[in-house]
């Protein structure tokens, strides 16, 4: 199987090369046999990339250390699940994983779109083949996972301990699924630009793919935050690391697109803008991959440095040049049809929403690249760390949160003063009440109070929207409010799924605002010694060290410290934090010691302990942190993902009669509740 996999990679290269060449030639000359051949070559590329991937998985699971990749990222005593996930732990395997997902996505997109997009497909197929060709070329000549060693070592180097975590098993695949899904809308955009068929049809084809990309990107980012929090030990979930930033950029652009596409669908506006967003999301995904793999910016998440950076740079230059040429030469075809009737309209709100989303994306990109600019201009590579990103992005983020509440309250086209008053009164009262209550309870952190007040306003907006819809259904159909709620969501998933996403965003902002009350302590505790502290909620905590212990387990030697935790004198739990030295099957240490943090998690606060070092035999140097509301980051992320899933879920075709019985419908009932946002 391994040999078949190795050979399959080269066959996939030939298939992708043929798909690209025949596809572009066929599309240009309009020869149907070449177009059909390119389509079949794309499916064949997918089949051979799948075989190549199965081959590598076989080599990993059977610990075939004759392969450099297997020896570099696994060891004989590595648990099987991590041998499987080691596939994407290194440069070569992760590139093959890219190619695998891309070829599967491409095949699905081409197969499902073969009838609905007859004009675009001849260009979509070779564009996707060209992207696949780039990845397979890079694999074959730049980072081949099937490179063999001159000799077979008795054991491999093992997997980086930080990657031996369930979060890291799930985070990269989700992020890749999100990143790579941007290639499909990009290919459709290229097809639409070349053929100048820039009406709303191509957008409806790509919207589902953008949603898919956004969904997996969301899940991937949240899983990455969780992994960083529980594994890396720096005490937070987001450090504005360049690689984290790179993953966030396509998410922001996709979010902007999912809002602005509504303006094009409703009003025929923003056509140039939507094409630009679709193209930018893909280019930023490639840019993110370039950052991760080139070593151009130092990051704790980056892969080891290799010549692959140049491959990505070349591809990025080509993609940017081609799309810039296509967009600028098609500007006249992208001219909008509609006109704006009023500045006080939902169209305007979406424009400002897009402005802020792109503003945040620019600020993050700028901060990420500024060290390079600074080095080029001043000769000094300055550090752009969390203080910069927080200072710049907090006001922009709060502006975005505010627009999340304003948008749904303003009507399309134009809103009257009476309409605005009626819509805004409830939510504004909610926001003001939250703000006043927090000030009355003594909260003085400006941005936190503002975030909670705006969050109250947004929640007020969403509750009002749900209440209106539920009441309407209750009146019209006599449904109970619970039934009305579920049917409201089921009948208009796009609108109410979107509101659920907004609820998740409010929860996330509430959790982020809680960071203002984070408290951390640097302590040294001998066995039996006690440390006391007061957390951000005013609770008195006492920690008693139970001593330091050393023991061996599985494939590691562990040093652990155990703390007994009491809140206001009451026992609440034991917290264990560890340092792990991983060893190979010969008993030799592998990698640097890894941190395993201790977390006592409660809905309102986490107690987070890190064993920083051991002095003598029983004295532990530790960091104890009170992290408020972290629990809500994970649940907020889940709510956002759930909302995305609801939006994505296919709407049943209600025109199709149910077998055996067709109920007569009163006129008007069919469209009830379908006022898509």
């Amino acid at each position, binding site marked *: 199987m391994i040999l078949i996999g190795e050979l399959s990679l080269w066959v996939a290269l030939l298939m992708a090369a043929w798909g690209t060449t025949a596809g572009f030639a066929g599309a240009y000359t309009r020869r149907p046999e070449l177009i059909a051949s390119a389509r079949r070559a794309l499916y064949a590329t997918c089949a051979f990339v799948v075989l190549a991937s199965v081959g590598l998985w076989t080599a990993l699971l059977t610990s075939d250390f004759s392969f450099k990749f297997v020896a570099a990222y696994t060891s004989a005593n590595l648990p099987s699940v991590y041998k499987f996930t080691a596939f994407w732990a290194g440069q070569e395997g992760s590139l093959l994983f890219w190619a695998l997902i891309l070829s599967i996505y491409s095949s699905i997109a081409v197969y499902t779109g073969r009838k609905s997009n007859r004009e675009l497909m001849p260009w979509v197929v070779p564009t996707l083949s060209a992207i696949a060709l780039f990845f397979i070329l890079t694999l074959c000549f730049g980072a081949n996972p099937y490179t063999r060693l001159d000799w077979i070592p008795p054991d491999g180097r093992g997997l980086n301990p930080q990657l031996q975590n369930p979060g890291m098993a799930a985070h990269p695949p989700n992020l890749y699924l999100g990143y790579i899904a941007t290639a499909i809308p990009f290919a459709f955009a290229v097809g639409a630009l070349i053929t100048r068929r820039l009406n709303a049809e191509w957008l409806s084809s790509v919207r589902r793919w953008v949603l898919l990309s956004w969904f997996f990107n969301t899940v991937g980012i949240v899983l990455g935050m969780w992994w960083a929090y529980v594994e890396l030990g*720096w005490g937070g979930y987001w450090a504005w690391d360049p690689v984290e930033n790179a993953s966030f950029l396509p998410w922001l652009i996709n979010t902007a697109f999912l809002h602005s596409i509504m303006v094009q669908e409703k009003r025929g506006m923003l056509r140039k803008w939507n094409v630009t967003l679709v193209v930018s999301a893909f280019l930023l995904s490639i840019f993110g991959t370039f950052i991760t793999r080139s070593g151009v910016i130092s990051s704790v998440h980056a892969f080891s440095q290799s010549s692959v950076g140049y491959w990505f740079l070349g591809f990025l230059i080509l993609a940017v040049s081609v799309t810039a*040429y296509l967009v600028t030469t098609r500007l006249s075809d992208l001219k909008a049809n509609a006109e704006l009737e009023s500045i006080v309209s939902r169209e305007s709100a979406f424009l400002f929403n897009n402005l802020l989303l792109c503003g945040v994306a620019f600020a993050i990109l700028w901060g990420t690249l500024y060290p390079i600019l600074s080095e080029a201009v001043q000769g000094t590579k*300055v550090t752009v760390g969390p203080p910069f990103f927080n200072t710049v992005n907090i006001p922009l983020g709060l502006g975005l949160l505010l627009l999340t509440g304003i948008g749904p309250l303003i009507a399309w086209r134009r809103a009257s003063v009476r309409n605005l008053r009626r819509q805004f009164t409830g939510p504004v009262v909610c926001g003001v009440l939250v703000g006043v209550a927090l000030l009355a309870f003594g909260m003085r952190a400006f941005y936190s109070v503002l975030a909670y007040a705006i969050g109250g306003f947004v929640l007020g907006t969403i509750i009002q929207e749900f209440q209106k819809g539920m009441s309407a259904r209750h009146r019209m159909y006599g449904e109970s409010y619970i039934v009305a709620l579920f049917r409201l969501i089921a009948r208009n998933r796009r609108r109410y799924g979107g509101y659920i996403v907004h609820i998740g965003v409010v929860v996330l902002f509430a959790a982020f605002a809680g960071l203002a009350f984070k408290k951390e302590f640097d302590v040294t505790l001998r066995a039996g010694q006690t440390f006391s502290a007061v957390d951000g909620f005013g609770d008195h905590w006492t920690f008693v060290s139970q001593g330091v212990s050393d023991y061996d387990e599985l494939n590691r030697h562990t040093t652990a410290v155990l703390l007994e935790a009491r809140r206001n004198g009451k026992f609440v739990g034991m917290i264990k934090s560890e340092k792990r030295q991983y060893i190979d099957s010969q008993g030799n240490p592998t990698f640097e010691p890894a941190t395993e943090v201790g977390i006592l998690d409660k809905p309102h606060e986490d107690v987070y302990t890190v064993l920083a070092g*051991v002095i003598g035999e029983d004295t532990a*140097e*530790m960091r104890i942190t009170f992290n408020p509301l972290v629990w809500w980051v994970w649940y907020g992320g889940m709510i956002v993902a759930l909302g995305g899933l609801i939006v994505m879920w296919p709407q049943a075709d209600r025109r199709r009669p149910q077998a055996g019985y067709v109920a007569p419908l009163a006129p008007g009932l069919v469209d009830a509740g379908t006022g898509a946002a």
Partner: protein
Amino acid sequence: MPTRRGFLSALGAGLATASFARVLDAQQAVQGVNTGTANVPMDEARYRPVQLPSRGTGPSMTDAQRDALEHKIHCQCGCTLDVFTCRTTDFSCQVSPPMHHDVMALVAGGYSAQEIINAFVNVYGERVLMEPEQRGFDLTAWVMPFVALGGGTALVIALIRRWRQPAAEPESVSTLPMNATPDELSRLDKLVRHDDA
């Protein structure tokens, strides 16, 4: 045939992206061999003493204030963390503990937070800060996002003005020759309201 505009934009975009190649060369020249997924070469030789004579006035700040100060100083071991976070997270770091000892000595020597930061900048250069300074060329780091946002806002407002067409007054509508019955107009009104939802 490519148009002049298309050719120039493609060329410009390509050149802008290609400028990374130079950066990539420079990066690869200075960085060492990395291992695994952590692209962070550890180098204890990066530590340089930051020492000043004691003023004899006693400690200038509390432990909590000192920890907050260490959050503003970038550990020089090659990681992306500040001194406080690195020394309390990674016990294999050889750089953050001596940097921490320098901070403690300066605090005990009576130096203020700003004086300590200045002392570190004098020794290590600006890279020892966790954020760019708000002066000189580095001011552009802070200003540019807001300049871009301001430019974007101006652009959006200009576009809104250009796209905006004054809607017809209700009176003028009523004067148009229409064959619609009041019932049809009422249905039309309902449809428009439904669209607004």
